């Protein structure tokens, strides 16, 4: 009886809810996920491996059933060869949102699909489509990453080390090595971490007996193939870590005998307790040289992201604490095959945080910022459906910019131009959730007709005006302004007002950087040898004037001081400060000589400008007094790349052409 009353009460409540909900969407939001959430499956040799796909509905639908179609979609993993294609319809009954599952299968094989050079796992997707009775799809794609197990005795993968210190004593140094356990037909039984040390320089051990000035530690199995391992070398070890000193590690993978793939990494220890450098992250490699990490790291909510010139995306935990610099717990390094050249934006959607990376082979990738899974790739080899290929496969790829509804935009769009050896490109607006082209410019009917020249820099978005601006280089350097179209129907069209559009800068040859919008003007640096300049274009009337500096390329973009009309930029060997009074650009100071400065960064609200140089230093330049405070990070001719700011933790993050990422505490 009691149960009957409850049922009646529930039914009444649901009827009331249903009535109340007529103005709302019928049901909840749909999600698809692979559990466990790291989404990585280690391949076998024969048969198949079941993978559970879980479907969620955020709230029950009181008005009827809710259904959604799902299907597997090829990524770099191919249907039939790498996974069993599958799909059907999932239906949630009325009043019921209990999660549902389906089983899909990874196809095992004995084909070696792992390259120790590219380090790329294969992956495919599970996609949702055609929802009925739901308010919408919150997360319509899950990624299954396949860790290949067919390489013969592979070495450790994605080796990296975080260096800091745990105290102020001379033996309080700490090096924490991390790597992925390789998958192989028969897994490794032991890892041996060996090192050599010297006050100034060292070489990595070639064997476990080649350890003069160092030693070895063994880690015995069993291990989880594809799992992560952490080895800490600090003052709790028998052989402690001196500060400062050079340490060269080799990690040997033991399969009875040693794997021929000896991973190595070299670091210099430092005292992080009083010193400004709080930690350093160094990727390792299979042979003797490191890969440059000159691209400015991206600071996101879930971590700091860096793409090396080996195309591997690493994530580091933020801040200054016990785990800072280490891989975030749910993160797995991911290889994109090619490097990026500019900072990659991170944007949070209801489906999760996404890192958008444009790589120099003409591809654009979306990576889940928490797990490292590839969410989509617009790649030459595997385009999205029947979408047109991105045309940059023989040249550089500009970094994606974006406009997002969560920041007040009319649409969610990833805006990206490309560069090829022969020009003739287009400017694309991609859907950030799946990489599908929403529109591109120019298309048929656009004015002017015909293709555009190369886009080398990031576009800049005018949110209130729903406009996007970018520069092209080729026969003539030109600034373009496009309208992005109405909400729900993105349409890239040349702006007819202002009438200057497109604006040739009167320069033939050379390249451009990325435009910056400030005070109703667009600023663009151009590289045309001695005639290189920055240009100020008044958007309202097309007034254009320039400031020629005579020192070659403007690095990337002009940094506007958000407090007034000052601008800062760097060139081949100089740092410049100028002012734009609305009629002309004039110098604030005599250019400061700095060996090969990076793109600058100003800490908001301060007079401090940060620049990496070619002598292993991060420089803090006071823009009022021009006083320079150096932060030495390395010695000799080491190039320090463009800085990024973690404003919450007062850290500037920079990479070097030795491949090291430094976290530097700044005032």
């Amino acid at each position, binding site marked *: 009886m009691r149960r009957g009353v409850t049922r009646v009460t529930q039914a009444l409540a649901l009827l009331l809810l249903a009535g109340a909900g007529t103005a709302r969407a019928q049901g909840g939001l749909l999600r698809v996920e692979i559990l466990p959430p790291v989404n990585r499956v280690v391949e076998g040799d024969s048969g198949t491996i079941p993978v559970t796909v879980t479907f969620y509905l955020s709230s029950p639908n009181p008005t009827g059933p809710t259904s959604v179609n799902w299907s597997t979609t090829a990524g770099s993993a191919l249907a039939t060869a790498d996974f069993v294609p599958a799909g059907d319809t999932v239906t949630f009954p009325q009043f019921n949102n209990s999660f549902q599952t389906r089983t899909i299968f990874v196809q095992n094989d004995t084909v070696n699909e792992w390259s120790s050079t590219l380090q790329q796992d294969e992956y495919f997707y599970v996609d949702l489509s055609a929802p009925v009775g739901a308010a919408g799809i919150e997360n319509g794609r899950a990624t299954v990453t396949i860790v290949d197990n067919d390489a013969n005795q592979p070495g450790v993968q994605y080796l990296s080390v975080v260096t800091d210190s745990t105290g102020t004593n001379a033996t309080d140094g700490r090096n924490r090595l991390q790597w992925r356990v390789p998958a192989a037909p028969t897994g490794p039984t032991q890892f041996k971490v060996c090192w050599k040390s010297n006050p100034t320089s060292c070489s990595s051990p070639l064997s476990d007996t080649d350890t003069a000035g160092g030693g070895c530690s063994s880690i015995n199995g069993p291990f989880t193939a594809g799992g992560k391992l952490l080895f800490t070398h600090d003052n709790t070890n028998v052989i402690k870590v001196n500060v400062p000193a050079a340490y060269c590690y080799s990690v040997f993978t033991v399969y009875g005998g040693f794997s021929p793939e000896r991973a190595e990494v070299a670091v210099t220890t430092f005292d992080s307790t009083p010193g400004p450098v709080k930690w350093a992250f160094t990727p390792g490699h299979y042979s003797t040289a490191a890969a440059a990490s000159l691209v400015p790291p991206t600071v996101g909510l879930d971590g700091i992201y860096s793409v090396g010139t080996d195309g591997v995306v690493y994530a580091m935990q933020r801040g200054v604490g016990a785990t800072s610099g280490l891989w975030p717990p749910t993160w797995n390094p991911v290889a994109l095959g090619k490097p990026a050249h500019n900072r990659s934006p991170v944007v949070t959607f209801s489906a999760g945080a996404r890192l958008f990376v444009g790589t120099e082979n003409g591809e654009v990738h979306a990576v889940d910022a928490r797990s490292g899974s590839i969410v989509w790739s617009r790649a030459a080899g595997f385009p999205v459906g029947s979408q047109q290929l991105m045309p940059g496969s023989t040249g550089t790829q500009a970094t994606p910019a974006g406009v997002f509804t969560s920041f007040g935009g009319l649409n969610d769009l990833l805006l990206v131009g490309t560069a090829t*050896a*022969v020009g003739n490109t287009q400017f694309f607006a991609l859907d950030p959730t799946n990489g599908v082209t929403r529109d591109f410019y120019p298309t048929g009917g656009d004015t002017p007709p015909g293709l555009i020249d190369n886009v080398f820099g990031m576009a800049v978005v005018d949110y209130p005006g729903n406009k996007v601006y970018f520069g092209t280089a080729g026969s003539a350097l030109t600034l373009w302004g496009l309208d992005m179209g109405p909400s729900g129907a993105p349409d890239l069209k040349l702006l007819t007002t202002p009438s200057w559009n497109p604006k040739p800068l009167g320069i033939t040859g050379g390249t451009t950087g990325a435009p910056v919008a400030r005070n109703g003007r667009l600023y663009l640096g151009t590289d045309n040898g001695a005639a290189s300049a920055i240009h100020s274009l008044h958007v309202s009337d097309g007034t254009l004037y320039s400031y020629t500096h005579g020192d070659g390329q403007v690095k990337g973009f002009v940094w506007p001081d958000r407090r007034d009309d000052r601008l800062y930029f760097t060139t081949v060997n100089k740092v410049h400060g100028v002012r734009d009074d609305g009629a002309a650009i004039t110098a604030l100071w005599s250019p400061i000589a700095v060996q090969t400065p990076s793109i600058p960064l100003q800490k908001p609200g301060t007079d401090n400008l940060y620049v990496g140089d070619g002598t292993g230093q991060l420089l803090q330049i006071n823009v009022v007094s021009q006083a320079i405070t150096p932060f030495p990070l390395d010695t000799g001719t080491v*190039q320090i790349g463009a800085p990024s700011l973690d404003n919450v933790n007062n850290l500037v993050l920079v990479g070097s*052409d030795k491949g090291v990422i430094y976290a530097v505490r700044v005032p």
Partner: protein
Amino acid sequence: MSKLLLALLLIASVDALADDDPRGQVSCSASVSVVDGNGRLREARRVSASVVPSVVIRGRVSPREEDSPALLFDVYNPHGRRYQVLLATPRVVVSERDGHRVKKTSKTREATLAVAGSSIALTSMFGRWRVEPRLEGESRPCGRAEIFTIRP
């Protein structure tokens, strides 16, 4: 007698060298080019980072075998540090025959290195660059290094 001894010694040393090289007589090459505005390749000894989007590095492995390991190009910056490892892929040549487009895989393998707008330009990494061809899995080059210059 002494000439015979010398000859035997020379043969022995050649055999020893062959035993040291598990791949036998495998050799490879690398050459650096740029694509001009008409899409044609031309040799590149000096490249302007303000003009050239990318350089093309081409190489061959001989003898050519289906199962020969991947050809890599180690690209070293003017500081002598390795900047990138490029995986060379077989070049696909598309031609027309009897009105049909025919795809043919060339013996030549190639890879591209981005220049204009890349980290090279953004950090003024100007000077002499070196490209060394290498077979995947090997630590030593399999052919002669190529030098080219990137200028502003």
